[in-house]
């Protein structure tokens, strides 16, 4: 099902949670709403679901305006951040709830409900836990119950609020892969909220990056990672270094060093900021070309050695990730080096 948000504005008291958001989601897409806390991503999700009402704008499902349409009629599968499982019902009762509360004409028979619940229990790999209560389950199991419960009503769209937020790292990875497979095999349209960039980039077809109630960028994981359009996206994704610089006649100058800047074409003269990721920096001999720097720290207790260097001219500290073969073995604290940027972007300001 296609889903559109048009000019969504939402204010809580004096706080503007969403300041005019437009979003277009195609049928079958797996979309991540990514942003820091307070960026409005959960508010947007709740408005798409109909759990909150927007102050302005429209939500369209298959080009049909959902404004004024009750939540019950939207057939939205919503998975709550803390799962919101019914504590006093068993797993099976939780999953069957959406079928049990249907008006009597539409309600499946008890046997049909049971069959459907069993099917869903198999789907989420909890076949033998149907009689348990939520309090007897682990976090990952609760998450899957919440998912099965949402799927039971055959939703037109699946919305998940921080689906892995409350889980530990190992369970999180497993569930992520499993959810991705589930999305594909059931041909769902899914939208999830997360503040974890790795999660968003790994799982989604389309990443929507939000900040302060507005969308900063929408694109595939590759696009948003490799072609960030705003300084916020640059800093939020991949932990890029910020390097203040001067732009003059299409040339970028950091301190007193002029560095080649292939991407900078139409930038106006004036101060700018170069964004460069740790893995896009290389370290060379002090006599070579590049920006002079001094090694401050070498961390070797990680998959890739990380080095912190300080630029001589500006005393700015940069994080550098070295390829494994260089191993950083030759580097030591206090050593003079030069750094080169294999790839970077410059934005004005």
């Amino acid at each position, binding site marked *: 099902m296609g889903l559109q948000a048009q000019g969504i504005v939402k204010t809580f008291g004096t706080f503007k949670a969403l300041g005019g958001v437009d979003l277009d989601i195609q049928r079958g897409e797996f979309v991540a709403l990514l942003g820091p806390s307070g960026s409005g991503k959960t508010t947007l999700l709740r408005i798409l679901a109909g759990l909150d009402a927007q102050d*302005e*704008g429209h939500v369209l499902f298959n080009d049909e305006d959902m404004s004024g349409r009750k939540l019950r009629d939207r057939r939205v599968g919503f998975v709550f951040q803390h799962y919101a499982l019914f504590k006093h019902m068993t797993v099976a009762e939780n999953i069957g709830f959406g079928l049990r509360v249907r008006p009597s004409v539409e309600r499946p028979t008890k046997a049909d409900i049971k069959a459907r619940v069993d099917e869903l229990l198999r789907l989420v790999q909890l076949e033998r836990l149907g009689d348990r209560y939520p309090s007897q389950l682990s976090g990952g199991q609760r998450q899957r119950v919440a998912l099965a419960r949402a799927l039971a009503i055959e939703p037109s769209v699946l919305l998940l609020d921080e689906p892995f937020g409350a889980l530990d790292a190992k369970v999180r990875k497993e569930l992520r892969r499993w959810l991705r497979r589930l999305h594909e095999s059931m041909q769902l349209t899914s939208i999830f909220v997360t503040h974890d960039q790795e999660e968003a980039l790994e799982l989604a077809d389309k990443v929507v990056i939000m900040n302060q109630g507005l969308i900063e960028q929408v694109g595939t994981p590759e696009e948003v990672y490799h072609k960030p359009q705003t300084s916020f996206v640059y800093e939020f994704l991949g932990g890029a270094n910020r390097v203040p610089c001067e732009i003059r006649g299409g040339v970028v100058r950091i301190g007193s060093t002029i560095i080649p800047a292939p991407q900078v074409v139409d930038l106006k003269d004036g101060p700018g900021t170069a964004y460069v990721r740790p893995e896009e920096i290389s370290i060379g001999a002090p006599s070579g070309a590049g920006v002079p720097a001094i090694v401050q720290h070498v961390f070797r207790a990680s998959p890739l050695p990380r080095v912190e260097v300080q630029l001589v001219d500006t005393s700015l500290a940069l994080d550098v990730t070295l390829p494994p073969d260089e191993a950083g073995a030759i580097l030591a604290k206090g050593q003079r080096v030069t750094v080169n940027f294999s790839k970077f972007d410059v934005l004005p300001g």
Partner: protein
Amino acid sequence: MSARAGTWGSWKRASVLPGFRLTLGYTLLYLGIIVLLPLAALVLRPAELGLVGFFETVNTPRVLASLRVSFGTAAIAALINGVFGLIIAWVLVRYQFPGKRLIDAFVDLPFALPTAVAGIALTTLYAPNGWVGALLTPFGIKVAFTPLGIVIALIFIGLPFVVRTVQPVLQDFDSELEEASASLGASRLQVFGLVILPSIMPALLTGVALAFARAVGEYGSVIFIAGNMPMKSEIAPLLIVSKLEQFDYAGAAAIAVVMLAISFIMLLILNLIQRWARRHEDSDR
């Protein structure tokens, strides 16, 4: 959806849960009939006396004496409960002793025991020929049928208020604070006086205030033990009842209004003191 947010949004946050208008409407109707309308009658009724009449009704020696008795005994009882309620809460939270569970449950007795039952039991107990009264008579102490008897009844009524407000705070008290102050060389007494007491003070004040508020209006447990001698041991609620029995509705309402006004002002002052006592607490607490 945007239309609904427009009409309700100004005073109520939109929600997907249904039934707000129905339940709020019912709540307001119920409160209106049970509380607001009768209270309006209470406040407006003395108006028929006029300001001068109102003043004359209240400013008689007997009424003033009864107010003094009510508020005075309530204050004394609340203070005594403050001390012993704190000790009981402390003992229940900090120490182990046989029968502790039972004692803990028993503290709520005054909430559950009808006041008239408490009244006749305490009177029989503290009468000159009663179990406790007989022990006190040789010392010339008369409890029943004196203001002292009123205080005893009000202690009974108010005790659980203090214990039950202090207990949870004491329970949650961070023992690291105690350990820290002990490690800095403070004695047990200093730890109690300088660290523990200040942090449970707001709760203790709340408990004392609740006990006091309850005691001021108490009727059932008091009238049996008080002896009800005008000017000496006659409480204000009893005076209201006797005015009613003479069909002096306005007079009864006037005394009631004065009682409520004094209680309100005292609670307001206590609230301010509490706010002051809580001034160092985290805002999220």
